[in-house]
C-alpha cells in the first residue's frame, strides 16, 4: 500500500490573457520599439503611464512624452539569490528609477554587479532585449545598468506621437502556482479508507446525519466530528439524480465527449455522494433509481494524491466509477427529495 501523504501538493497552471486598454497598449507598443514613454497629466509626467491620474482618478488623457532611457535611482532592495522566477540569474537590485523626463519612479531591475555599487542618486540606463525578442512586456527591458555617461537622456520630455491603433493590445500572463494543503485529520481518514478499498463517513451524534467522506464537522449542528464518529458505509447505492455534461474545452481539460455525473444514495444510509461517474453504459442511458456499485482500482494502483481537504466525497484515483448492478430500478419518485 502506498504511504498516505500528509501534505497535498497542487500545481495550478493557466494562460491568462490581459487586455491592455488604450494607454498600456500605447506604452507596450512603444516599449517593443525600444522607446519608454510616460503621460503628462495633472501637471506632471507619470511613467510608465496610467490611464487615470492615481491621485484624483481623473482620466489621464493622451499627452504622451518620451522618457529615459537613463534615469536616477532613489531606493532599492538587493536580491542576493535570484530564483527561477526572476528574469536574470545573477544578484541584482529591484529599484525605484525616476526616468529622465518623468516625475514619478518606476520599478525595475538594476544589474550593478554588487550591492556596494548601489547608491542613491546613481545614474542608470535601460538595456533592451534584441528587437526580434521583444514582445511588448516590461521585461523587454532586460535591466538597468550603471550609465556610462551620466548626462541627461537625449530627447527625454519630447512628445511621443502615438499611433491610433497600437500594435500590441494584449499580453499573455501565464499562471504557474504551486500550493500545499496540510491534509486534515478527516481527509486522512478518507484517504486511508479509500486505499483500503472501503468507504467511511462520520455520523453526527446530534442529528444522526452521515457525511461521506468525513469532513471533521457537522455543518448542521456546527460541532466537530473525529475518529470516534467514523462509520463504515456500503460502496453500493441508488442513483438519485444526474446530469450529462457537454465538456467545455479549456487548458487542462481532458474530457472531450459528454459525460454523466450522478448523485448516489448509499444503501441503508442517508448519505449521498455527488458528482460520481458511471462506467460501461452510455451517458444517455443513466436513470434515476438505478442500483450501482463502486468499481475499485486495483489496490496497488490506488492513489490519493489528488484528494484535497475540500473535495468531499471525491474517490480520487481509487474508485474508477460506479457500475450498474443489474438489479431492477427503484421508482424514480422515491428520490425526488434526495439530491443531497
Amino acid at each position: 500500500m502506498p504511504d498516505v501523504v500528509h501534505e497535498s501538493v497542487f500545481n495550478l497552471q493557466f494562460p491568462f490573457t490581459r487586455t491592455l486598454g488604450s494607454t498600456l497598449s500605447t506604452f507596450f507598443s512603444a516599449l517593443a520599439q525600444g522607446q519608454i514613454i510616460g503621460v503628462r497629466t495633472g501637471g506632471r509626467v507619470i511613467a510608465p503611464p496610467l490611464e487615470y491620474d492615481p491621485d484624483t482618478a481623473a482620466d489621464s488623457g493622451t499627452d504622451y512624452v518620451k522618457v529615459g532611457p537613463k534615469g536616477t535611482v532613489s531606493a532599492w532592495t538587493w536580491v542576493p539569490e535570484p530564483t527561477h522566477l526572476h528574469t536574470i540569474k545573477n544578484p541584482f537590485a529591484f529599484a525605484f528609477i525616476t526616468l529622465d523626463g518623468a516625475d514619478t519612479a518606476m520599478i525595475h531591475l538594476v544589474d550593478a554587479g554588487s550591492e556596494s555599487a548601489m547608491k542613491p542618486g546613481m545614474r542608470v540606463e535601460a538595456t533592451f532585449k534584441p528587437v526580434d525578442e521583444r514582445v511588448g512586456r516590461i521585461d523587454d527591458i532586460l535591466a538597468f545598468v550603471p550609465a556610462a555617461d551620466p548626462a541627461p537622456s537625449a530627447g527625454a520630455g519630447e512628445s511621443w506621437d502615438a499611433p491610433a491603433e497600437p500594435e500590441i493590445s494584449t499580453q499573455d500572463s501565464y499562471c504557474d502556482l504551486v500550493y500545499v494543503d496540510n491534509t486534515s485529520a478527516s481527509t486522512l481518514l478518507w484517504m486511508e479508507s479509500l486505499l483500503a478499498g472501503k468507504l467511511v463517513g462520520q455520523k453526527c451524534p446530534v442529528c444522526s446525519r452521515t457525511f461521506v467522506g468525513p469532513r471533521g464537522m457537522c455543518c448542521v449542528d456546527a460541532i466537530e466530528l473525529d475518529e470516534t464518529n467514523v462509520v463504515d458505509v456500503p460502496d453500493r447505492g441508488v442513483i438519485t439524480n444526474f446530469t450529462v455534461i457537454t465538456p467545455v474545452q479549456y487548458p487542462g481539460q481532458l474530457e472531450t465527449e459528454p459525460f454523466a455525473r450522478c448523485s448516489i444514495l448509499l444503501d441503508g444510509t442517508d448519505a449521498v455522494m455527488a458528482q460520481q461517474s458511471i462506467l460501461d453504459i452510455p451517458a444517455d442511458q443513466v436513470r434515476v433509481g438505478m442500483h450501482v456499485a463502486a468499481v475499485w482500482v486495483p489496490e496497488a494502483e490506488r492513489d490519493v494524491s489528488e484528494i484535497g481537504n475540500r473535495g468531499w466525497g471525491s474517490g480520487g484515483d481509487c474508485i474508477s466509477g460506479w457500475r450498474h448492478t443489474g438489479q431492477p430500478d427503484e421508482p424514480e419518485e422515491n428520490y425526488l427529495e434526495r439530491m443531497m
Partner: protein
Amino acid sequence: MSHQPVAVVGIGQTHHKKRRGDVSIAGLVREAAVRALEDANMDWGDIDAVVLGKAPDLFEGVMKPEMYLADALGAVNKPMFRVHTAGSVGGSTGIVGSHLVGSGRHKRVLSLAFEKQSEGNAQFALGGGKSGSIGAGGAFAPFIRAYIRRSGAPEDIGWRVAVKDRLNGAKNPYAHLKLADITIDKVRESPMMWDPLHFLESCPSSDGACAVIFTDEDGGKAASKPPAWVLATAMKSEPSTFAGRDPVSPQAAHDCSDEIYKAIGVTNPREQIDCAELYVPFSWYEPMWLEAHDIAAPGEGWKMTERGDTALDGSFPVNMSGGVLSSNPIGASGLLRFSEAALQVRGQAGEHQVGGAKLAIAQAYGANAQFFAMWAVGSSLDPLG
C-alpha cells in the same frame, strides 16, 4: 435594524460583451463608475468610500484586484472594501454599500462589481484548475431536473424563459446578447449542454461592470434625477450539502425574501410588488425562484411563466433587463439585477421600463444555490402607503 434612509442616485454599467478587448480591467470598471458619477451629477472627489465585488480571483488570475483598482476607482486615502459571496456577490456589494450610508458612517458610497471573463476561463476556475469541470450548469442541472419532476412542469417552460429574457435583452442597449429573432424552436434545437439544459437556456460568458452610488436622505431629495430608495436588504446563506438539504427551494432563499417582505410590510408579494429582477443564469430558475421567494405557491411558479405573467407586459414582469441569460459578467451580475430594480422605480429603464413601477425587488444567488442577497427598492420611502 435602525437605519437612516438610503437613496440610489447614480447607476452605470458597461456595454457587456464576450470580450471587451478595448479596455483593461481598470478601464472596464472605470467605464461603469464614470457613467454612475455622471448619472449622479458627481465627481470622483464626492465619493467617501468604495466597495468592490467580484467572483473568485482565479477567473482573471488577478489576486486581490481591489488593491490594483483602488486608485483607478478614486479610493486613494478613502476606505476600500472587498466583498465576495460567490455568484451573489454583486448583490452583496450593493447591500454593503447601502449599509455604509444607512449606518451613518459615510454620506456617499460607490459600489462596483465586475468580471472580465475573457481574460481567463470560468469552467477552469470553477473546476479548481482540474480536468472534468462540471461548471455552474453541471452543478445546477440536477436541481432543475428535480424541480421539473416535482412540479410536473411541461418541458417548454425553460424554453419560454430563454426566449422571453432574450427579447427583453434586445431592448437593453447594454445587454451582451441581443437575440431579437430567438424562437422556442431555436432554443429546443440548440445543443444540449447540461441535460436537461440546452445551450440557449444558459447564460453567456461576459466582460462587464456595474456601478451604483448611494447617498443619504438629504442627498436623495436633492438629486437631479429621481432616486430609488433602498427599503430593505437581506443576505442569507446555508451549508452547501447535507442530508435532507433541499437545493431546489433552499431555506435560505425563503428566509431572505421573508425578511424583505416583513421589513416593508408586504403580505402578498405577487400583488404588491410591481416587478422583479431575479438571478436566472439557467432558464428554469425563473419558476424555481418565484416559488422559493413565495411569489408563486409551491409547484405553481411555472404556470406564471406559461401564462406570460412574467413577460415585460405581463402582470408580474421578471428580468426586464434581459437578466443573467442576456449578460453574465459574473461578479457584476448580481449588481446588475439590483440596478435594474432601481432603474425601474426611478422610471429610467428606457425601452424595458415597466409603466408606473413603484416597488421592485432584486435577488442574486451563488455557489451551490446556498448564498442569497436581496433588496427592495421604491420610488418613495413608502410606496405601499
